[in-house]
């Protein structure tokens, strides 16, 4: 199988869908000639022209709203929000418009909109360029939220998102853009709403998504050398959440650690943990634990940022603490 960078897999998904469907077009800041802040859309304007790869003014709320308006009129826009932090500026159009139109207007017109946005810390960008705000989004009925960890999933899930008739927020990881992965050949999609067991084990289930899936796999390697075989479940889609795949794993291992890059309080980990407790209580041999970012803004300083964010070593420590307290 050929290998692609995560960022190139995303670009390839958009290019293939734009070739397949003339209704698909891109809207965003600096996405045309410049190729986007992370070069994800580089080259697309050359192939598809600046009508379909459309640079916008810096107006996040209206960029999303224009996407909604075009979507209800039969187009299939992909909106680029340069940093997920800026989604704060677009929340009205996302929450009160994109998420609600299909439902509150009596199912007259779907809103086939994709909002792509890179999240996460680890690059010392500081408090307003590093956040993981997915939890805000899963709290809104009507939005679907996807957050892939691997290049192959990024491509297949983005193609599904573009073909989906509902608004989908597609959360990308800045730190994973430069990571290569094997990509299946040809036109393939991966269904939204399906988690995946990416490493099998019998002692503990690590539940993660996006970059924390990669950190969980690293942690599993370390744990394996210490005699603990961890199973890793990559959520891939955060809303709707595939609790069945998670529950099947936790019922097998009897132990669950939820690993998320967003901050702890009210985070994705809170929702996943609640669902695990509801679904798997009788199978649990230890309390469910969470490894997440500290409840602080993410500082710029490398030392401080590392201290605030979860990583493989913190996951290992949480697993070992669980076994120490509940052998």
């Amino acid at each position, binding site marked *: 199988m050929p290998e692609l960078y995560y960022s190139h897999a995303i670009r390839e998904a958009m290019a293939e869908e734009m070739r397949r469907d003339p209704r698909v*077009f891109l809207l965003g800041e600096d996405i045309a000639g410049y190729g986007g802040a992370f070069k994800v859309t580089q080259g697309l304007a050359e192939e598809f022209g600046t009508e379909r790869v459309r640079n916008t003014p810096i*107006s996040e709320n209206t960029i999303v709203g224009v996407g909604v308006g075009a979507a*209800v009129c039969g187009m299939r826009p992909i909106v680029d929000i340069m940093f997920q932090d800026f989604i704060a500026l677009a929340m009205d159009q996302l929450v009160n418009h994109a998420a609600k139109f299909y439902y509150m*207007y009596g199912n007259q017109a779907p809103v086939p909109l994709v909002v792509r946005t890179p999240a996460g810390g680890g690059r010392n960008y500081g408090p307003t360029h590093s956040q993981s705000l997915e939890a805000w989004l899963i709290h809104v009925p009507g939005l679907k939220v996807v957050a892939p960890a691997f290049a192959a999933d990024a491509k297949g899930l983005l193609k599904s998102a573009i073909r989906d008739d509902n608004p989908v927020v597609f959360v990308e990881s800045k730190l994973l853009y430069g990571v290569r992965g094997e990509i299946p050949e040809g036109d393939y999609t991966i269904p939204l709403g399906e988690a995946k067991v990416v490493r099998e084990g019998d002692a503990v289930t690590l539940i993660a998504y996006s970059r924390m899936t990669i950190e969980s796999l690293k942690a599993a390697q370390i744990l394996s050398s210490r005699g603990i075989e961890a199973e890793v479940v990559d959520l891939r889609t955060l809303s709707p959440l595939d609790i069945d795949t998670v529950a099947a794993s936790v019922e097998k291992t009897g132990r669950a650690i939820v690993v998320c890059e967003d901050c702890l309080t009210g985070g994705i980990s809170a929702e996943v943990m609640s669902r695990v407790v509801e679904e798997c209580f009788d199978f649990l041999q230890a309390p469910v634990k969470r490894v997440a970012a500290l409840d602080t803004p993410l500082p710029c300083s490398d030392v401080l940022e590392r201290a605030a964010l979860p990583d493989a070593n913190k996951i290992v420590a949480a697993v070992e603490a669980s076994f120490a307290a509940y052998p």
Partner: protein
Amino acid sequence: MSQDLRAVLRDMLLIRRFEEKLDDLFSSGVIKGTSHLYAGQEAVATGVCAILRPDDMMTSTHRGHGHFLAKGGSPSALMAELWGKATGPSKGRGGSQHVADYSIGFLGSNGITAGGLPIATGAALAAKMKQTGQVVVAFFGEGGANQGTFHEAINMAAVWKLPVLFVCENNQYAMSTRYDEIFATPTIAARAAGYGIAGEVVDGTDFFSVCEAIERGATRARNGEGPSLIEMLVYRYYGHSKSDKCEYRTREEEAEWRAKDCIGKLQTHMGLSNEEYRTILEDVDAEVEAAVEFARESSEPEIEDLESALYA
């Protein structure tokens, strides 16, 4: 034209009587929730729709019943929606502020102040990309002109020369707040210069003035010359919403505006006899009564659809 004007007058009266009926139904608690009545501003909605093509589109506001009816929406369906019934266009999920009928190009009333401006801009972008020749009207109030979306959407539409008419219905009060408390300039239309687009102020109580301004704007839009900002000076006869007693404005001011009533003006212009006027009014009242009966008799929405209707 005289026959056309009779239809226009009928449309204005339909909106007026529909809203007056609603005021009764809300005040007496027959209909729950809240509403924002359009009475007083009828010349704007009917004038805009007299110029638009049937396939042109519009986004509306929280005060959207008049826009919906003028665009050709069914009074019975609208009444059913306000009543929360399954036969409303939004199946009772939307209510007064969230009514859409895509089949007539009515892209929705909207509970978020100035929330429709980006939507209209997006609809206009779709029309341009698909080369349909449609124009889109974005209604908003003067209160909405101070939202960020006003600036963002007008600028974007201007840069891309999109076929949008930004129609501001300046009814003098943003809820209870007077125009001069929240604007430092005498007109909103003057802001058009800041976006490099055409702007004008129009007597929104005069049907013909509204038509002429919209005609100019629609022609520019269809010629690829981009959006316009058209400020209609109007007055709402009722309070902002159901519970508003209008203590922030004087009865004298209300009387001054009532003396300029758009329906009275058109009736005078047409030289309509009282008898002819009464005939139209009776016809309209019968239609409003039929709408009330339709809504009253309609089924409640299915609870089974509450969750299953969420995703397309």
